[in-house]
């Protein structure tokens, strides 16, 4: 019994990272209609940025978490404002490959700046340690992550449903031209949404610094695949779907790692195949 609880907790904390990446991905897809391969790179950049603030500027964890992802937002701004903006109207392969080009560029830049090897971040003084749950120790930091995920979800929900900006974002996402003719500055809005989505991914990376143990230049590529799977299972463009999907995938792969260690990823794919056969548009996707 206690081992099951621990597996579920581990799965939830894993799922929260996937959610943070998938939420930015989903938001950008929902509003801009672009699937951003480079989103995993923003996660990676967020991790390296926070790490650098933490280690070389000698700042605390919170400062790193604040400054690292903010710096990555600048990269997101450049990508949208000077590149992605020009390909909204052209065929899908070009859009995807444009973001893929940024995966190559960012991965390589990280190798140039921080080196190709793995970096190990300093250990945390607070939120470190672990507390006993049902007789076994569980890291406090993972509990913190489990709390952050829903907090971000709540923030997003409030932003989109309760504020004036949220209403404009939803309007532009359902009918770009109508929103533009009603006076919404759609290009600026798109830049804003893209930068915000970038921040969500980078925040996930910043939070991952004490969690993953090692930072490597390929860390974005692994999580972007999981975020894609989550987005497919939940329904492309649905934030609710991304949240539920991330939890399901997180918990499921934790059980996979525990009980079928060599086939944990495979379970995820089986689940995706099953969902697609049963509901091709995803769990919360609108019927097409």
């Amino acid at each position, binding site marked *: 019994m206690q081992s099951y609880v621990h597996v579920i907790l581990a799965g939830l904390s894993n799922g929260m990272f996937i959610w943070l990446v998938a939420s930015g991905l989903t938001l950008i897809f929902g509003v801009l209609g672009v699937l951003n391969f480079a989103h995993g790179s923003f996660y990676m950049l967020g991790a390296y940025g926070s790490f650098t603030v933490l280690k070389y500027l000698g700042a605390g964890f919170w400062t790193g978490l604040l400054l690292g992802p903010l710096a990555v937002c600048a990269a997101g701004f450049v990508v949208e404002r000077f590149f992605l903006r020009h390909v909204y109207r052209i065929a899908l392969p070009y859009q995807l490959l444009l973001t893929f080009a940024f995966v*190559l560029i960012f991965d*390589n830049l990280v190798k140039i700046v921080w080196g190709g090897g793995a970096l190990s971040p300093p250990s945390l003084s607070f939120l470190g340690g672990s507390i006993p749950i049902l007789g076994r120790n569980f890291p406090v930091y993972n509990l913190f992550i489990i709390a952050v995920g829903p907090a971000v979800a709540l923030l997003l929900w409030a932003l989109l449903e309760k504020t004036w900006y949220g209403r404009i974002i939803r309007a532009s996402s359902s009918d770009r031209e109508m929103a533009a003719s009603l006076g919404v500055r759609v290009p600026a809005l798109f830049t804003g949404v893209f930068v915000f989505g970038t921040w969500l991914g980078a925040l996930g990376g910043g939070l991952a610094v004490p969690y993953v143990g090692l930072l490597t230049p390929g860390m974005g590529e692994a999580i972007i695949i999981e975020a894609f799977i989550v987005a497919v299972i939940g329904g492309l463009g649905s934030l609710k779907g991304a949240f539920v999907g991330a939890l399901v995938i997180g918990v499921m792969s934790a059980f996979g790692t525990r009980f079928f260690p060599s086939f944990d990823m495979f379970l995820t794919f089986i689940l995706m195949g099953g969902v697609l056969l049963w509901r091709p548009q995803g769990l919360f996707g609108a019927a097409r």
Partner: protein
Amino acid sequence: MKAEARNAAAAVVLLALCAVPFLAGKFTVYLAMRIMLLGIFAVGYNLLLGQTGLLSFGHGAFYAAGAYGLGFFGLHVSGNPLFGVAAGVAAAILLAILVGYLCVRHTEIYFAMLTLAFGMMVFSLIWNAREITGGDDGLIGIMRSPVSFFGLLEIPIGTDRQFYFFILFFFALSVWAVHRIRQSPFGLALAGIRENARRSEFAGVPVRRYRLAVFVLSGAFAGLAGSLEALLESNARPFMAHWTHSAEPVLVSLLGGLSSLTGPLVGSAIFIAMREIIQRFTENWMLWFGIVLLVIILGFRGGVVGTLSAFFRKAAAPGEG
């Protein structure tokens, strides 16, 4: 281009390719083989992307199926490379039927993500099934035995120069086959599906079945390229199924130009040559390649072949400019 001129050009290129192993050094011969492998992969893949308008990010899986299919066949059944290649292609076709059946009901972005996910599924299977596939070490010890026709005739392919002609044979065969497919009623129906799937459906084209057919076909070419690479490098590696490898035929097709047969071939040559040249000057070839990619996407969307042919058309008819 007129048919005679095109045939003449093809003959000249074929002759030039035949001459390469006699005139060029070892390394150039190796690069030429890599270009032909990527060419087979890309020209088959472009039936799906350029001709039908479906963007797959999972064809590395079929490439890997070809390589591992040949590997297992060679290690456990028979060393004859012709049968091995057939086994590799068969494995790729079976996998493509399975994946394609699940994917072709979707189009556009869903299709791209599904193929990506299934490709990575194959990758993680190969990676994790260590006892069978060798995991991250790959499947090693694949031999280049002589090509044997039932003991009557034996052609050795052990040296690189001999093996070059083995690859050239399949390369020429693939390009010719893809050319015929593009011109066939089936190929034209695929172009119709690309332009307007609904109208094709109303015109009586079984759209989903055609999509599946071309998916499997392009998977077969990927498997052929994969099995040949396994013979060339004498191993099969899990990274053949990785999504970054699946992106290669997409890149190459865009680099050369989507709308022609020659586009992906020219793109393959440029890709391999560019990688070699950039790697000679810097370790950061991904960075430079990313920048080149940005320039192509933002400035030259017809690819090299498309941009050049538009340029010559303009030069030939200056009045229309």
